[in-house]
């Protein structure tokens, strides 16, 4: 693999800050993997997700810039806060930013979108006065 940094120091800071903010606001754990992944992206993303310290409440975003594909994996607990529909929206938002060549911006946007969905507390007894 040819050498080179995927992100500038500034972009790395932005992503790290977005992760920190998202974790702070939602209480979930966020992780972003950027690199080429061999084989089935979903399976590999789940494998990476399993390696995370607190996998059940973790949300992992795997971005493969070579194949133009991304995968979001939500842990068992995280799934209750970020359902598949919310993850799909975030994935679409990221993909549309990646498509214009902005990797770091897309990741920051996607994390923001995931965070917003995770923030929403489930409404209980909504049908009662």
């Amino acid at each position, binding site marked *: 693999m040819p050498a080179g940094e995927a992100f500038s120091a500034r972009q*790395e800071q932005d992503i790290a800050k977005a992760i920190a903010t998202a974790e702070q606001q939602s209480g979930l754990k966020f992780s972003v993997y950027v690199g080429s*992944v061999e084989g089935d992206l979903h399976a590999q993303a789940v494998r990476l997700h399993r390696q995370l310290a607190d996998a059940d409440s973790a949300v992992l975003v795997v971005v493969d810039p070579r194949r133009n*594909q991304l*995968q979001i994996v939500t842990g068992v607990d995280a799934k209750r806060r970020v359902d598949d529909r919310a993850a799909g929206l975030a994935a679409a938002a990221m993909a549309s930013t*990646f498509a214009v060549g902005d990797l770091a911006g897309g990741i920051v946007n996607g994390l923001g979108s995931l965070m917003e969905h995770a923030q929403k507390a489930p409404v209980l007894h909504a049908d009662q006065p």
Partner: protein
Amino acid sequence: MKPPTTPEARTRRALRAAALGSLAAVPLLLASPAFALHRDAGDDPGPGMSAVATILVYIGIPAAIFCVIALLVLAPSIARGNRYRPHQLSWWAAPVWFGGPRDERGDTADRALTGTSLKELTAYSEAQTEGGASARW
């Protein structure tokens, strides 16, 4: 194009042709001394330029200006280094894992894709049902 039928149309057409013709003719008329075959009294054309000087002035200087402008345009991206372009189907950078298992900066990424076998993994994911979504661009 249809030929002009009414007299008004014909006049308009003639005026338009005259205006366009004068646009081309006026600079040529003003530059008439350049076409002079006989020297006027008192003019001093000076010695002609040598071939080297001509090339320097009319090719060298424009080329230099071109290079400077090209450099100014390209310098920021050269300084920034390689960058991601969609639909290039190549990726040059080492994997980065933000918020990975151990490191905040992704130094553990290289050993990321070794470990659990795929069979264990599918068994695990079926039992635990992680959620998620995917997208392509």
